[in-house]
């Protein structure tokens, strides 16, 4: 054999690999193991694709017998190219080579990676990982939030029932409009949706799409409480909390990638996917921020400041064991006790300021 490469041989219909050597000779793929040679495979019988998690390996399938060979060694692609004129194979080889470079950050040569690592490590010493990711989030354009939110929303609406009941949708849009009138018009483009579920919760996607559960709308006593919830969620968007949480979950590499804008669609897609499947509860600081920013928005818009507080206080008094779904809001918007205290304090301060 001219040159041979290390690979794995999977007999037809199995998932158990044997360690083999793979080589090319006279238009045939030759596979051999310690136990001897396999039947040579004519190149006209094979099809190729990229496999493995990082699409970093070549999967060769014998169309006739169904046996499969996997190989890591990129030189096999070059060897295949030389040994065949079949245009479909050339096509596939091209596709696989492209597929292999899907994740550009992973293909930095190692010394560049080392430099970047050291540089990043130095920055980390000063600001910490959280600081770094937050700094990156602050530098991303608003259009990035929008992109991630839109992709996530498309996915979510495939699986979830978005209630089209006019009454609920109208109600929420009317309240939302009133609040948005007092927001910086340069801010995000907001949209309000009602999610058909028995959970009591609400969620803000990056870029301005806000989802409120239908059951939450049953449980609020009046529009003032609902406006309180909306003010809180709007603040999660304007303060980019959901985007930040997604970036934190995604890690430093992805955040850097997002900033460098390699391919906004690809990065956005992956972030949106993460948003869809990861547990992205807000942290305590974000919750308090959203509470307080929300209260300011309520006051500006002529709603009573304590709408959200009243609603959360009532939920918190419920018996935990009786109905978990009523308390779902505390799973993604945590720290009920501390938040309620902080909100009370702020409301007292607002009252005092008014009296003066």
């Amino acid at each position, binding site marked *: 054999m001219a040159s041979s490469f*290390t690979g*794995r041989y*999977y007999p*037809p*219909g*199995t*998932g*158990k*690999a044997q*360690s*083999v050597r793979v080589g090319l000779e006279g238009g045939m793929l030759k596979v051999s193991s310690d136990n001897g040679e396999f039947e040579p495979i004519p190149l006209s019988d094979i099809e190729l694709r990229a*496999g*493995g*998690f*990082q*699409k970093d*390996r070549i*999967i060769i*399938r014998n169309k006739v017998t*169904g046996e*499969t060979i*996997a*190989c*890591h060694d990129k030189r096999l692609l070059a060897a295949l190219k030389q040994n065949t004129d079949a245009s479909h194979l050339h096509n596939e080889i091209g596709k696989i080579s492209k597929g292999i470079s899907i*994740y550009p950050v*992973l293909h930095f040569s190692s010394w560049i990676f*080392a430099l970047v*690592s*050291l540089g*990043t*490590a130095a920055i980390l010493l000063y600001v910490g*990982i959280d600081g770094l990711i937050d700094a990156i989030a602050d530098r991303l354009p608003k259009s990035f939030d929008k992109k991630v939110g839109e992709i996530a929303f498309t*996915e*979510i609406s495939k*699986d*979830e029932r978005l209630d089209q009941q006019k009454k609920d949708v109208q109600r929420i849009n009317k309240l939302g409009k009133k609040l948005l009138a007092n927001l910086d018009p340069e801010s995000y483009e907001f949209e309000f949706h009602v999610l058909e*579920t028995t*959970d009591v*919760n609400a969620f803000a996607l990056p870029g301005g799409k806000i989802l409120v*559960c239908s059951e939450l709308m049953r449980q609020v006593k009046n529009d003032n409480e609902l406006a309180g919830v909306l003010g809180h969620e709007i603040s999660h968007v304007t303060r980019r909390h959901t985007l930040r949480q997604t970036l934190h*979950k*995604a*890690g*430093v*590499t*992805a955040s850097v*990638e997002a900033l460098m804008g390699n391919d906004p669609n690809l*990065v956005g897609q*992956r*972030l949106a*996917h*993460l948003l*869809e*499947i*990861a*547990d*992205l509860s807000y942290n305590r600081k974000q919750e308090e921020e959203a509470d307080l920013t929300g209260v300011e928005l309520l006051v500006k818009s002529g709603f009573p400041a304590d709408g959200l507080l009243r609603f959360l206080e009532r939920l918190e008094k419920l018996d935990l064991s009786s109905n978990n779904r009523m308390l*779902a809001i505390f*799973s*993604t918007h945590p720290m009920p006790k501390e938040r309620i205290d902080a909100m009370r304090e702020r409301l007292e301060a607002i009252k005092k300021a008014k009296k003066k």
Partner: protein
Amino acid sequence: MYFDVIYPGNSAMLVVKLAEGESFKAEMGAMVSRSQSVQISGQIDGGILRSARRSMFGAEGFFFQNITANGAAGEIRLAPPELGDIKLLDMREGVDYFVQAGAFLAAFGDVQIDTKLQPLAQGFFSGEGVFALHCTGVGAVAVSSFGALAEIEIPDGEIHIVDNGHLVAWSGDLNYSIVKAARSWWHSITTGEGLACSFTGPGTVWIQSRNPSSFFKWMKKVVARK
């Protein structure tokens, strides 16, 4: 070096006999008993750069112990913390495995273990325990399961979906992506549950018959009742 699984089943243990000077890597804190000559030293695998990389990318530092027979031959027994089985994965040239970090017990021979930097959608698992170690080289890797350990072969092109909590190890030729086990986005986002790995063959997946976090939840319920 001799190694074998003893008491296979739900209380499996690993026994390793070392000639003088021989050594291997094991999970921190797995020792049950050892000869006097067998010494254990904690070590972050792969030096400063790699550990910086690890802390940056969320692996929260995966620590190994180096176990060496010093001055005389010796023997050591190892066990994972959970009730379950142990399986030895044979490592040959060109064959590679991903091992769920919590399932790694020991590595023998010339095996490299990399806490491989993973592309985005999978990178967030630090808290979930599906952070995978990438094992390459020649030798063997011992993995442990919670409950029984089963093997699922996935032929070329076929798809098989495994709940994340039941993953132990899988062969590197498998392509995989994270999907929702349950349909509801709402459920996974509020509970963090219901994530699964969708594997495309060819390759083999090893699974455990019990899910540690479901078990823990069940325990909590039982304890709370009293």
